[in-house]
């Protein structure tokens, strides 16, 4: 990205200066010059497009891990006011609706795990359906699938997946309100029939990690984290159903935008006023897909616990937190000193509520919400803590991952899956996958420096670093 049109607000936050005669809302980019230079120029174009959408409140923003997406950039954040003609955009949520990370803390340390890591990785690989062509054991009837769409992780709990304590540590207690299964197409429902309890492909994973370093002792204590402790991270979303909802409504919302005279600089920005029939239909379908994702991660948590129990009967896996990073959520934020109800789009961005927020579990209320930044399979991941809103400035949002530094096509030209897996094994990281192509595309070198993303997230005030995690074994889709 050319920094020519950017004005430095702080070394970790930049504004995009308008072109002559250009009328749009402000654009703010959270990152330092090094990260910005590494971003595709499309990021700037896409976030400037977002700043033209009706009913935007404040600035359109990108997080430090931003990269080129569909309509909105990945790492894009924008809030809209329904009472001011604000819109909802399928491109502002993303295709994998409610893709997110479930983090589980264990009572194990690396020393206990190490002798049994290989067996555990093999067992997890057998237990967790992952990758193209793999189906879950759970096959749901249409009526049951409707119940999942309404109940989310709470449906899964009622059907024996997990424990009641999990719900407290999932956003919206495991079930978002406003799901309308009738707004989800039959094809979307058919696609999901064999996909409950599956990981998927691409950048999705189940990873065994170890806490390498604690940065914030108070937050780490609240989160139950200590150096050397073993964690499990599950990264996946709403699978085929969510993607089909995104696909279906892209067309519906694009047609609505045309009918209502909303100018779309890019078709993938497809949107409709929140209060329009199409906007309401998408909201109902999107919330149904969010609940599918929450149920999916709950089922995968159950499968992971069963695998651990077989190899390490003494293991206890507690949900540290489950947070989505492809959503539109209705939230109240203080704008110009007044509370306003906003539809906050986070597309490849994590919610990051600060200390004292009523939505947080009591245990974390003093320190703020756990913010999970997932890294690549060979480098590391981070847990951060949400900051107060006056410090965050991005509607309580933060980074969600390392962000790709190069395309999958480029990665395939550089790395070979089998060689990469051997190299990572030599470095003490076990990879289990059916796809050598997928492994090459997901090579650690294809991603940005996750440590720099975490540093930028902290220094721009979005969230503060709590713990650095290193991968030990990874089941890849």
């Amino acid at each position, binding site marked *: 990205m050319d920094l020519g049109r950017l004005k430095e607000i702080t070394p970790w936050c930049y504004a995009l200066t308008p072109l002559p005669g250009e009328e749009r809302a402000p654009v703010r980019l959270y990152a330092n010059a090094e990260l910005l230079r590494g971003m*595709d120029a*499309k990021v700037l174009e896409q976030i400037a497009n977002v700043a033209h959408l009706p009913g935007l409140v404040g600035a359109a923003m990108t997080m430090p891990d931003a*990269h*080129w*997406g*569909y309509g909105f950039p*990945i790492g894009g954040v924008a809030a809209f006011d329904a009472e001011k003609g604000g819109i909802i955009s399928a491109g502002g949520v993303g*295709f*994998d609706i409610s893709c997110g990370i479930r983090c589980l803390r264990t009572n194990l340390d690396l020393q206990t795990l190490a002798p049994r890591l290989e067996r555990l990785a093999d067992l997890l690989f057998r237990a967790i359906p992952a*990758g*193209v*062509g*793999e*189906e879950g054991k759970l096959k749901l009837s249409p009526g049951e699938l409707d119940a999942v769409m309404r109940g989310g992780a709470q449906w899964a709990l009622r059907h024996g997946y997990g424990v009641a304590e999990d719900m407290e540590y999932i956003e919206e207690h495991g079930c978002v309100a406003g799901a309308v299964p009738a707004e989800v197409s039959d*094809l979307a429902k*058919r*696609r999901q*029939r*064999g*996909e409950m309890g599956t990981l*998927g*492909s*691409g950048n999705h994973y189940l990873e065994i990690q170890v806490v390498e370093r604690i940065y914030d002792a108070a937050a780490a204590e609240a989160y139950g984290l200590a150096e050397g402790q073993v964690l499990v991270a599950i990264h996946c979303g709403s699978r*085929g159903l969510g*993607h*089909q909802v*995104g*696909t279906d409504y*892209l*067309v519906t919302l*694009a047609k609505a935008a045309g009918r209502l005279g909303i100018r779309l600089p890019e*078709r*993938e920005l*497809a949107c409709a006023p929140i209060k329009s029939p199409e906007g309401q239909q998408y909201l109902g379908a999107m919330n149904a897909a969010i609940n599918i994702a929450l149920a999916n991660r709950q089922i995968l948590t159950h499968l992971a616990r069963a695998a651990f129990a077989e190899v390490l009967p003494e293991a206890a896996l507690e949900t540290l937190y489950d947070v989505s990073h492809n959503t539109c959520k209705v939230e109240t934020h203080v704008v110009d000193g007044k509370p306003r109800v906003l539809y906050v789009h986070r597309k490849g961005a994590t919610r990051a509520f600060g200390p004292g927020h009523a939505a947080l579990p009591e245990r974390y209320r003093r320190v703020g919400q756990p913010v999970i930044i997932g890294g690549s399979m060979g480098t590391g991941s981070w847990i951060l803590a949400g900051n107060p809103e006056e410090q965050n400035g991005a509607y309580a949002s933060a980074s969600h991952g390392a962000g*790709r530094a*190069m*395309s*999958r*096509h*480029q990665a395939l030209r550089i790395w070979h899956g089998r060689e990469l897996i051997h190299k990572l094994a030599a470095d003490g990281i076990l990879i289990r996958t*059916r*796809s050598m*192509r*997928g492994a090459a*595309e997901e090579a650690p070198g294809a991603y940005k420096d996750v440590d720099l993303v975490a540093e930028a997230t902290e220094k721009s005030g979005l969230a503060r670093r709590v713990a650095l995690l290193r991968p030990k074994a990874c089941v890849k*889709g």
Partner: protein
Amino acid sequence: MHEPIAYFEHAADMGIVGRGKSIEEAFENAARAVFAMMTNLGQVRLQASVAIEFEEADPELALVTWLNLLLGQARSRALIFGRFHLRRDGASPKGTSSGARWSGTAEGEPWRAELERGVEVKGATLTGLAVTQRDGNWEARCVVDV
């Protein structure tokens, strides 16, 4: 004419290209480009056939619709497709626009352990979307979500 199948860069996902002497052939090759990301098409046995029908006057939206219907049918039936056929039937039954009615088939088999595993393509997007004709050759391209 260039290669019937090609790929182009996208930061997070993958751009696919299908080329042919007709728009239908370009769309069939675009489908091959998509499914070749998931497996080695040469290994796929053509044991099952699925009919695909849709109406779309806009050629670009027709490409996205074609690919997404194929992906949706493959996933909902737990199949992998290896061969595609598409026909444009001319005017829609409603007579509202010419070239709006498409019918095709996809042939393949249920996933089996011996099939090579690539990456799952979740859907075709409107990004990088173009359907063009030059010197009698058609090219269809878009970014697919991986």
